[in-house]
């Protein structure tokens, strides 16, 4: 038992105490106490989770109704109305962000996975790390300087670009990991059969890694959907945004579908988190109540995407381990 005294960095006297029965009992009780404490800490961390989810579901659930999903907001002071504009805005913003982030993320990830040692590969990995740490409000300011200021107005496009920048780092990193996990003999087999590099990538590697890539993509999408800060100075918010009217009006006036889409991209839009933020600051009690309903919808949306993605990746990982 002499070794334990060196392990515990004690003096010989301390070592004797440690070897005595009292010392043993004390060490054992400290052990039990600390191990219990870690369990309790884990429970403590879950308290806010259940508190938030429970409260939002209870309070927000009361104010959920069909109007919330089908009506535009009424003027302040008039009860009722909904947040259709924000739902449309969130969907459009997510769509634009995905259209920008998916091709960039996918192709950059292929480069990162197959050319890790080149100068560009190193720069890419570094940039991805930096981008993932950039505060979302700074992304908002950046897109303001890049898009809003030169074009002269807030727009759906600017908001979509900001959200895409939020999504990119996670998308690239998870896609790269998944591509690397595909057994190299699959790729080599395809190349040996004479398939060109790009065909191997798109028809062999990509299908094999697809579920993992989708998971990473869904997680980053969920994160971007809940973001408010990058939209404050890019999409701005627009409580008169009416998608149906714009499409009908545009087509009715004889504009081509591209002109209508271009027009929509130029409009400022609202999103669920933006609306939630604004309504929560409103002195009007109807607005505050509606903000709980919006929180309910937003949280359910984000948590559902998260749970689906994570459970999916867990089951895939279990399958691969077998």
């Amino acid at each position, binding site marked *: 038992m002499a070794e334990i005294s060196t392990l515990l960095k004690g003096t010989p006297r301390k070592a004797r105490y440690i070897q005595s029965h009292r010392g043993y009992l004390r060490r054992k009780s400290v052990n039990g106490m600390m191990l219990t404490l870690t369990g309790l800490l884990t429970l403590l961390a879950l308290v806010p989770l259940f508190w*938030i989810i429970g409260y939002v579901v209870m309070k927000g659930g009361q104010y959920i109704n069909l109007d919330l999903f089908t009506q535009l907001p009424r003027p302040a002071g008039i009860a009722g109305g909904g947040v259709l504009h924000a739902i449309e805005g969130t969907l459009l913003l997510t769509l634009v962000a995905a259209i920008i982030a998916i091709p960039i993320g996918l192709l950059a990830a292929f480069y990162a996975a197959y050319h890790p040692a080149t100068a560009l590969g190193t720069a890419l990995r570094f940039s991805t790390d930096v981008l993932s740490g950039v505060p979302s409000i700074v992304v908002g*300011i950046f897109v303001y300087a890049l898009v809003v200021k030169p074009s002269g107005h807030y727009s759906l496009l600017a908001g979509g670009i900001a959200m895409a920048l939020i999504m990119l780092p996670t998308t690239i990193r998870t896609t790269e990991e998944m591509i690397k996990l595909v057994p190299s003999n699959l790729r080599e087999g395809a190349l040996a059969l004479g398939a060109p590099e790009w*065909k191997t990538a798109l028809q062999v590697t990509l299908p094999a890694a697809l579920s993992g890539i989708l998971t990473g993509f869904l997680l980053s999408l969920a994160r971007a959907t809940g973001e408010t800060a990058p939209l404050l100075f890019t999409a701005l918010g627009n409580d008169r945004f009416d998608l149906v009217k714009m499409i009908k009006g545009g087509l009715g006036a004889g504009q081509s579908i591209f002109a209508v889409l271009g027009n929509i991209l130029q409009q400022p839009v609202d999103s669920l988190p933006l609306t939630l933020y604004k309504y929560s600051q409103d002195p009007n009690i109807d607005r505050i109540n509606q903000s709980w309903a919006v929180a309910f919808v937003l949280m359910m949306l984000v948590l559902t995407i998260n749970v689906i993605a994570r459970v999916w990746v867990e089951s895939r990982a279990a399958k691969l381990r077998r």
Partner: protein
Amino acid sequence: MQKAAARQPRKFPIVARIENLTKHGDRVWVGLNIAMSLIVVISMLLIGYLLWRDSSGTRQAFGLSFLSPFVESSWNPVDNKFSAWPFIYGTLITSLVAILIAVPLSVGIAIFLSELCPQWLRTPLNLLVELLSAIPSVVYGLWGIFVFLPAVITPLGQFLGNTLGTVPVLGSLFAGPISLSGSSRLAAGVILAIMILPTISAVTRDVLLAIPSSQREASLALGATRWETISRVLLPYGISGILGAVILGLGRALGETMAVTMVIGNSIGASASLLKPGYTMSSVIANEFAEAVSPMHSQALIEVALILFLMTLILNIIARLLVWRVARKSSPGARA
């Protein structure tokens, strides 16, 4: 996996057409890969460049005094006098509170998840802790204003003000009384702690799991208890990785915007107390940028964003280096 290999490669019509159009498909493919990678690298560089360019006015007008705690701090858009120190102080103090609360908690959680938790409980618990990071920051803010602040922060603030407020040196940090709504730097710090907890505990858990099991076995074989093994073998072994996790969490805390803006009270008070409302760098940008009254005002806000960007950039580099060192140290024979 086998399925993908056995499947006859399907030929989408569009693929066939591109194939005909480009006899040298690989060049196009690699070119596209490089182009997209360049977009990512360039956008990172552009963030720094645009923030630098668009804050030139205030950088020339105020120089380093913009950051200094010692000049008379003022933020006066009407007179075009700006000094960012109150916001830097707010960001630093709230992040410090968050770290002080979150680190012991997350290390405890990570120990439980990696060393003690029974296998069947591990996956659901991991999922739940990670869900905590999935809740949107505005929802944290809303819950904070209407539920958490009145229920927890106001009583806690009153207690701290009564007990620690009279202590000579610490007293200035806990000078009360806290407002009835609870909006204060303390509130922002506690909410931040909840928000960064999943980040720190997930990375710490991975660091602990990456420690070779020979370390554990040797310590247990010498007669150490499990707690002694954890506290005297595993934690020192993974310390640089854990430090990296803490710095990653700190980076998140520095940049977090919405939840902080909603609970911190948004005022540049003269008091440095935790129990008083304050302002952080991110919350001043969120509040004032869209309504900046003069070009100088918006430039000052952009300079605040630049400082924030540089702070998180440096923190990220340090964190990556630390985590990377652990990964390198323990890669041979790492536990799955």
